[in-house]
């Protein structure tokens, strides 16, 4: 026979039959909730046909009886009460009751706290960048403390291993650009300028920007997660206790690795972008590749390529600093790790685009 709970809500009677196991908890909880809603004058629990109780159900039953008594209603048990009731009596006093729910703060306090957080964040970021710079200056005197093997490893992981994805993305974007460009320019009979569009677009902006966005997603998140886990495992504290500076050992090699990798990746992206442009212009506007090269030569000036490439190391520094800084901010829980990794990627992409805008204005002003 299985556990059953019969209630007569009006009379306040509850009759339990057979063993009440943890799995029977929902049945019991339902019955008790029904009785509590009806709020009868007296509560009678008939256990004469009940069997053994698990602790969970026994606790629920007892809580219900105590609540009834607290509300000045009589509560009785017929038959043998569950053996665990004696265990509950023995339980140590829980001490202070559950802490009161903290009251919701007013909007002014929340606004102030948000401002404080933002300002604090900016100051921390500046401090982080500054400390990295100081570390770089101090370390640059000695090749050994520069940790070349570490730099090379990071340059390899963030650069060489990213070549396939960066190449494919640059190729595809150039194709899209050439396709749309050719379609629009044809209306004016100026298809030939598709070459200019692709060449200048890719070399000045898209090559480096897309590379930076890919690297922010790939490497920024990896840096944040790597350092975050190290932080959670107390590895960063262990480094410091060994007299090593985390900025020297962890941050600087990552920053320098990316500073090396980013320009190289940008060159790959530029080359693939121009190749994609060449393919599409040959197909769409029947331009022989020799003519494409000639057109390309006249389209770009001496500075076009450099205007893109010069931004690459700057973006690399921004991405690496954001990633390592957020990683080192992780404390306490795995949820923090996830949150800060996301923050690292989003902020890195934002900073890259913001810096790109500044570069655009600057180059315009100096006529670069």
């Amino acid at each position, binding site marked *: 026979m299985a556990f059953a709970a019969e209630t007569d809500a009006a009379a306040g009677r509850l009759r339990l039959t057979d063993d009440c196991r943890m799995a029977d908890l*929902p049945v019991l909880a339902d019955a008790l909730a029904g009785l509590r809603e009806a709020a009868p004058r007296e509560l009678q629990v008939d256990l004469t046909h009940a069997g053994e109780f698990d*602790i969970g159900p026994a606790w*629920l039953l007892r809580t219900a009886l105590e609540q009834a008594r607290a509300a000045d209603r009589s509560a009785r048990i017929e038959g043998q009460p569950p053996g*665990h009731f004696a265990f509950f009596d023995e339980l140590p006093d*829980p001490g202070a009751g559950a802490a009161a729910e903290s009251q919701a703060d007013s909007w002014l306090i929340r606004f102030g706290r948000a401002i404080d957080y933002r300002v604090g964040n900016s100051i921390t970021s500046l401090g982080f960048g500054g400390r990295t710079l100081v570390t770089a200056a101090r370390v640059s005197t000695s090749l050994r403390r520069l940790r070349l093997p570490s730099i090379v490893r990071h340059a390899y992981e963030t650069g060489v291993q990213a070549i396939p994805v960066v190449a494919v993305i640059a190729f595809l974007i150039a194709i899209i650009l050439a396709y749309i460009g050719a379609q629009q320019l044809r209306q004016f009979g100026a298809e030939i300028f598709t070459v200019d569009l692709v060449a200048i677009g890719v070399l000045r902006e898209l090559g480096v920007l897309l590379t930076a966005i890919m690297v922010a997603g790939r490497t920024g998140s990896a840096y944040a997660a790597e350092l975050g886990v190290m932080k959670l495992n107390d590895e960063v504290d262990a480094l410091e206790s060994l007299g090593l500076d985390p900025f020297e050992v962890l941050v600087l090699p990552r920053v320098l690795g990316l500073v090396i990798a980013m320009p190289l990746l940008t060159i790959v992206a530029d080359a693939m972008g121009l190749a994609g442009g060449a393919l599409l212009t040959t197909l769409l506007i029947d331009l022989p590749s020799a003519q494409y090269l000639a057109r390309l030569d006249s389209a770009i000036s001496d500075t076009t390529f450099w205007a893109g490439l010069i931004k690459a190391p700057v973006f690399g520094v921004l991405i690496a600093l954001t990633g390592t800084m957020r990683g080192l901010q992780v404390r306490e*829980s795995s949820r923090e790790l996830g949150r800060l990794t996301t923050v690292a990627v989003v902020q890195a992409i934002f900073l890259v685009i913001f810096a790109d805008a500044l570069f655009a204005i600057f180059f315009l002003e100096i006529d670069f």
Partner: protein
Amino acid sequence: MEAVIRVRDVVNRFGAQVVHDGVSFEVCRGEIFGIVGGSGSGKSVLLRTMLGLRYPDSGSVEVEGRDLSSMHREELREIKRRYGVTFQQGALFSSLSVAENLTLPVAEAMDLEEDVYASLVELRLRMVGLPLDTAAKFPAQLSGGMVKRVALARALALDPVLLFLDEPTAGLDPIAASEFDELVLYLRRALDLTIVMVTHDLDTLSRTCDRVAVLVDRRVIVDTLPRIQKNEHPWIREYFHGPRGQRISAAGGHVGA
């Protein structure tokens, strides 16, 4: 005494390396059963075998008279609900609060009202002797001793009949460790639990365990602690009569209480 777990001729191998070569013992209802052994002697492998997380290469493990290896997946899950397990590091879910950690196993098993969950959290916290304001805290805010207690509370969440504790007192200070010993003894007495614990803590071993299994030479020697201590095996002599073991023997031990 009725056997809850019966391990018969269990052989565990990893490639050519034999970890267990014919291990047999029984764990009786209501006892606290300790497992000791040197590093690499296969304590965790044995624990995993008993939990059904690993099938032995030969031999069998029976829980409540049923063979684990011949069980359906559904049956196995059913029997795992009757286990409670604590892990060495606590293994609390760090992104969940203590209350959520304690509610998770119940909520996965059944659908209940919020106030019922809250009431059960209160019960489990009181069972392991923690103040109720612990419920709102996160694992990172707890001390080592509290983490072990919350882990125990989570293991008790589904009212298990069988409790596995992996190094329950490792990393605790002596006061917290002996408090934990008392807690384990108290819960065993009050709830009729059967407890299997892997431990290196000689104090815990002598204070709580009724019988002890020593893993040596890929086999197992099971007996009460005083008789194990008289065993002439060199490793066992070194273990119990080394500098650390002397203290316990001198105190006479509390075994068999």
